[in-house]
Each structure stands twice: as structure tokens, then as C-alpha cells.
């Protein structure tokens, strides 16, 4: 039923029906936006590029052959848009998500505290910032794989479809990316992540 509905919307969208297109793709707005946020580490750029993803999708929807799900197709466009943007804007400084998303509390060498509350929140904020910084320091493809697997929970097969890579390649990329992230976080920020140490 859902599939039939999707096919109908797809047909209408191919004919230029905006409403049908929005209905078809609207449920994926947030996820696409988040992928862009994590990849670009800049909310403004993420918003523009996320719209660009759907504009492109609407423009080239007639070329969509239906050999994968609409979501996979959209995520694929999103990853490509982000990668293209990053390549064109390599020198651009990332604006930490923390400034817009999290509280404006910069935590650097905070002591680890087990008590919950604001201190815990600050600790988490610091950790998130550290992770985002680490992601920014990683390579584009490693970053992408972490975002798709650990941030968005895509399966290996889905990641393989999105990135158009074999599953084996996806496995090795994930393991390397996680190792890289770990090394980056444990280098100077080990003290922020003492819970696991304990």
C-alpha cells in the first residue's frame, strides 16, 4: 500500500507536481539536514545544502529509475552534495555546532564529575564538541562513514547502497574511521572521557 502510494507520488512528481514531491520526500528533510550538519559542521551551510539536495532531486527525478528506495536515493544525493561542497570549500572554517546548538559553555580541561546536573550537561557538551572537532579533523570519507553508521544508524547494506561501495569496503572503512576517531579523541581529550577508563 505504502509502496503503491509512493509510486503514485513518484509519477506525479516526475510530471512536475511539487506537492507530490514534497509529500514523497518531506519525511526525509530532517535526516538530510542532519547529515549535512554533521558533514559541514555549519548550520547555515547545512541548511542551504540540504535544500540544494531536494532541488536536485526534483530536477532529476525523471532520471530516478526506482532501483533503490527514495530515501537511499536522497541520502546519496546528500552525501554527494556535501562532499562536493567540502571539496570546493576546503579552507572554510567550520563553525562549531556547539555555538548554535549547545549552551555557550566552553569546557576545556574540566574535571570529571560523576554527579548529574548542569555539570554533567557541561561535560556532555564538552564531549560533543570534542567529537565534532574530531570529525572535522577526519577525512571526508571517514567522517561520512561515521556519520552514516554511528550518528544515523544506517546498516552496512544501506551504507553500501548510499555510497555505492561494496559491503566489505564499508566494513573496513567503518573500522578505520572508528579507530581514527578514537585516536583523535584519546590524544588530547582523554581526560574528557575518563568514564570508560574507569
Amino acid at each position, binding site marked *: 500500500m505504502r509502496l503503491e502510494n509512493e509510486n503514485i507520488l513518484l509519477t506525479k512528481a516526475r510530471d512536475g507536481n511539487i506537492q507530490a514531491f514534497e509529500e514523497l520526500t518531506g519525511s526525509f528533510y530532517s535526516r538530510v539536514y542532519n547529515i549535512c550538519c554533521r558533514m559541514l559542521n555549519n548550520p547555515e551551510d547545512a541548511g542551504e545544502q540540504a535544500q540544494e539536495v531536494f532541488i536536485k532531486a526534483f530536477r532529476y527525478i525523471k532520471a530516478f529509475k526506482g532501483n533503490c528506495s527514495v530515501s537511499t536515493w536522497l541520502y546519496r544525493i546528500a552525501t554527494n552534495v556535501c562532499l562536493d561542497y567540502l571539496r570546493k570549500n576546503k579552507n572554510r572554517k567550520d563553525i562549531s555546532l556547539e555555538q548554535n546548538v549547545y549552551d555557550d559553555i566552553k569546557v576545556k580541561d574540566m574535571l570529571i564529575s560523576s554527579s548529574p546536573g548542569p555539570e554533567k550537561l557541561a561535560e556532555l557538551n564538552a564531549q560533543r564538541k570534542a567529537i565534532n572537532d574530531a570529525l572535522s579533523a577526519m577525512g571526508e570519507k571517514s567522517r561520512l562513514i561515521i556519520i552514516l553508521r554511528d550518528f544515523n544508524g544506517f546498516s552496512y547494506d544501506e551504507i553500501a547502497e548510499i555510497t555505492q561501495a561494496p559491503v566489505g569496503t564499508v566494513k573496513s572503512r567503518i573500522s578505520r574511521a572508528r579507530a581514527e576517531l578514537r585516536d583523535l579523541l584519546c590524544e588530547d581529550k582523554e581526560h574528557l572521557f575518563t568514564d*570508560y577508563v574507569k
Partner: protein
Amino acid sequence: MNFCKECDEYISLYIDELLDEKTAEEFLNHAEQCSQCSAKLKAALYFAGLCREEEEVPLPGDFSEALHNRLEKLNDNRDISKRKHLFFIKNQKIIAGFSAAAVLVISLLAYNLLPDLGIMKKAYNTASTASDAEAAQSVETKKSEDTGNIGNNSNSSEVESGIKQNKDSGSTLMQDKESVQQSSGAAPDSNSTKRAFGEILPPEKKQSNDEEANLKTRKYQEKADAGADTAVNSSEPEDEAGAFSLTAGMAADSGTHISNFAELKVKLSQQGKELEAYRRLIKEIGAVELNNAGSNSAAVNQIEGADRLNNSGSSEEKAQPEYIDCYMTLSQYSRLKNQASKYNLEFGYKTDIIEKDISDIYNNLNNRKIEINNKITEASENGEDTSAYETEEAGLNEAMEKISDRKEIVVVRMYFGLS
């Protein structure tokens, strides 16, 4: 299994629960014993957990509206593009049609115009120049063959005028090209077409084209000759071998006769016997008197009486003629001068040997011959003796033949006068 060496892979697979139960248990047992693998495993599990716990970043409030507006704009632009595209396609067809028509018109014009341009005329002039040179050369060749003819001016002048006329009527020649080809049964001349477009022909083709041009040149030369009775009849098929070879000897058929000619004079004494003496001298050297046919046959004198024609300038036989024409060879001419004293004759020279048109002498002989023929016919019908007429006719034929041949022949006009 070397868990230490491939620790990261096993950790990643363990985190994502992709290890089978047995492998997972073995790896955990190894991690408990290996501090490095244990630390890595713990760190990886923690960080992966942190990432998964990350909340989604909320979508900007105006995201949907902004996107919708952009989609609308995109749709509008698409419609405009479609209309422009269709408009262009329609115009493109029209433009393509006009372009094709223009190309066709230009091609047709170029095809029609090119033969009228200087290219064809230039090619023709080049060919006619070559043909003129050849025709002039053939004239010179024929002149050299006629050793007795010095300065065959009138005939060559006719040829030259024909050549000149041919040059001036260049376009006429090309227009009549087809008629010539048709009369000769020649195939359409593609070489001429190529010449029209200024193509450079290989030497062998050029030579053949020149020969063809020479052929046409000769034909028009003959047409240009005044009173050219035996000029090429255009209805006659052309013989490229030489039916139209241009020779000065054709003058024989054209009514003009050129011969060596000399004028002498003899002063008459009171006795007036010089004429008789001269005739005896002519007889001795073997020359032949032309204007007094009666000198060869007494019977003819009797028959013809006073109506005998001669070109002596006197209509009466017994009256002293102003002059007598004889033809003789050059050697006989020399003897005539040498033997003059033997007959008490003193020759004066009005002219030395020159080339002169003696057509009047020849025509008089011819007219006389026609008369003799008529008389022979009449006498035969009447049953009369025709031997005398036949003898005279033979003499006339011989004289006319000599004149036509004119090799080593001199026509001598002897004047008889008191001074």
C-alpha cells in the same frame, strides 16, 4: 585468529554485532587478557555510544517553506525554458529551411554564372592563342613547300585575317563548339567544361584540347575567307586527319591565281616585224603563247574569225596587239633573253620577275576553253570535224595546268610599242 593484529576490525564488528557468537566469545576472552585490545574495545564502544546518543539537530523552521518556494521557482523556469525551447525549435526549422534554400539558390547561381565569367573566356583565349600559333605555323610550312611562290601575300593575308577574325569572335567559337562537335559526332567535351571552371589539365589533355581548338580555328578561318567556295562545308563531317588542312594552294580553287610574272617591251620599228620575230623566238624556246590561241591552229583562225577572244587588248586579229602573254619555264625565260639578239629584238624591262595575280589570264583561258568545248559539242552534233578544236582545247588545258602548277613557270607579257 590474530586478534591483536586485527583488533580494530574485530572491535568494529563486535560493536555492530556482526561477529558470530563463537568468534565474539573468543575475542572477549582475548580482550580480557590483552590490555591494549581491552582499552581499544572500551573506547570504541564508548564513542560509538556517544555518537548514537547524539540527538538530531532540529530542522530550521523555515526550511520547508523556503524549499517550497524554490521548487515553485524551478517549475516556472522549466515552463519558460520549454516555451523557449519550442520557440527555438520552430524557428530552427524555419531558419534551417531558409538556410537550405539560400544554399540551393547560391549553388544554382554559381553554376549558371561561372560559364559566363572570365574563367571560361580566359581558358578559351589560352586555347585560341595556342591554335593561332599552330595555324600560323602551318601556313608558314605550306609557304615553304611552294618554292616558286615568293611572298604569298594575298593568301596568307587572308589566313591572317581569318585568324584575327577568329580571335575577335572568341565567344562565338565557344557557342558554336557544340555544333562542331555534333557535326563531327564527337562526345560531349568534358574537358571544355573543366576548362570553364579553370581546372588545370594535364599536358596530354591540354594537347588534345589545343588540337581541337586548332580544328575549330581552321574551320572559322575558312569561313572568314571571302568567296571561299571550297571552304569547309559545315554539313560535311570533319576529318581531323586533314580534310581542313590549310594550304596556300587552295587559292587554286578560290579563283585567284598567283604566278611568276615578268613584263618586257619591244620597240617597234617602221617595218613592224618585231611581233613576228618574237613569235618565232617563242616557238624556238618552246614557250606557249597564251592570249593568241589562233597561233596554234590555222583552222581555228578560220572558224573563229574576228570574234576570237584574246586578252591582247585588241579585238582584231590583224591589228598590232599591244602585248602578248606567254608562259614559259624559268630556263626558257633565260633563253628568251639570250636569243633575243638572234631575232634582232631588243628587250626592255618593265618589271622583273614578280609574283602577280594572273587570274584574269587564267580566267580568259578558261573561258576560251569553255567556248571550245561548246564548239566541239556543236560540231559533233553537226557531224563536223572537231580535231582542230580538240587540239586547241588540249593546248588550253596544258596552259591552265602549267599556270595552276606554277612551279618554275613565268608568265611573260611582251609589250609592243613605238617607244
